[in-house]
């Protein structure tokens, strides 16, 4: 079994990687730091498993080299569990990618990272409801402080593939995120 860390650029995948493996790959506070992938090992219930830090991708339709690498990694590792790291303060966007990965039949665990940032912005996410809709484990995390990691690791083994039709069925007409404050921070770019 392998574990792939996937998510948008600049959501904290590399911080996850460092925490889980004890490695020290480069982290910085701007998008696109990881262009190539990183490999490491972590202990999961007494077993060594391979962990791969995949470059950030907005979707599985590659537009640049980093995204091409991301899609390649996903396709080459059919037997892996995907930990989909989302920015909890921009959850809608992140879920688009999470659904794309689920749709391809991978077992997924969703990490709602930057939970502290979302709280600061007054964004409330109903985790249990989201979990019920998606049918995959959803764990709030704050990677820089390590909050939620124990739970996340314990849920990796629970991950199982979910049919997208089931999610559509259980999602009809529900809203899980409410926001009261102003959002901030630019984080995506397309040029053309």
């Amino acid at each position, binding site marked *: 079994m392998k574990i792939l860390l996937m998510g*948008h650029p600049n959501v904290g995948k590399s911080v996850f990687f460092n925490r889980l493996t004890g490695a020290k790959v480069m982290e910085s506070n701007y998008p696109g730091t990881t262009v190539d992938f990183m490999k490491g090992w972590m202990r999961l219930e007494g077993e060594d498993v391979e962990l791969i830090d995949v470059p950030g991708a907005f979707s599985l339709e590659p537009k640049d080299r980093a995204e091409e690498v991301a899609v390649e990694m996903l396709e080459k590792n059919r037997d892996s569990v995907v930990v989909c790291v989302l920015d909890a*303060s921009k959850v809608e966007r992140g879920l688009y990618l999470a659904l794309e990965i689920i749709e391809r039949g991978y077992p997924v665990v969703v990490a709602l990272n930057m939970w502290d940032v979302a709280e600061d*912005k007054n964004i409330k996410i109903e985790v249990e409801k989201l979990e019920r809709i998606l049918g995959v484990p959803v764990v709030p995390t704050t990677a820089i402080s390590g909050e939620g990691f124990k739970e996340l690791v314990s849920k990796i083994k629970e991950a199982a593939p979910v049919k997208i039709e089931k999610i559509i069925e259980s999602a009809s007409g529900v809203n899980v995120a409410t926001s009261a404050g102003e959002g901030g921070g630019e984080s*995506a*770019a397309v*040029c*053309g």
Partner: protein
Amino acid sequence: MEKKLSEMEFDEEGTIKEIEETLRKQVAGMGIREGKNIRMATKQPIKGPIVVEVDKSFTSLGLGVAEKIVVEV
């Protein structure tokens, strides 16, 4: 009234009406999809990129991309 996203004024809000087929998948991952509310957050001079706000998060788009998106304002 319909206009191109690139023609929106600063701080103007609208609903995304149409996205050119070739572009649709490219911008979907950034939360830009038909039916979404969108606000012009920054406009740069001399054909520079624009910054839009969708769902409380900001996305910058090249002007060429913005020209292919139709917004109802």
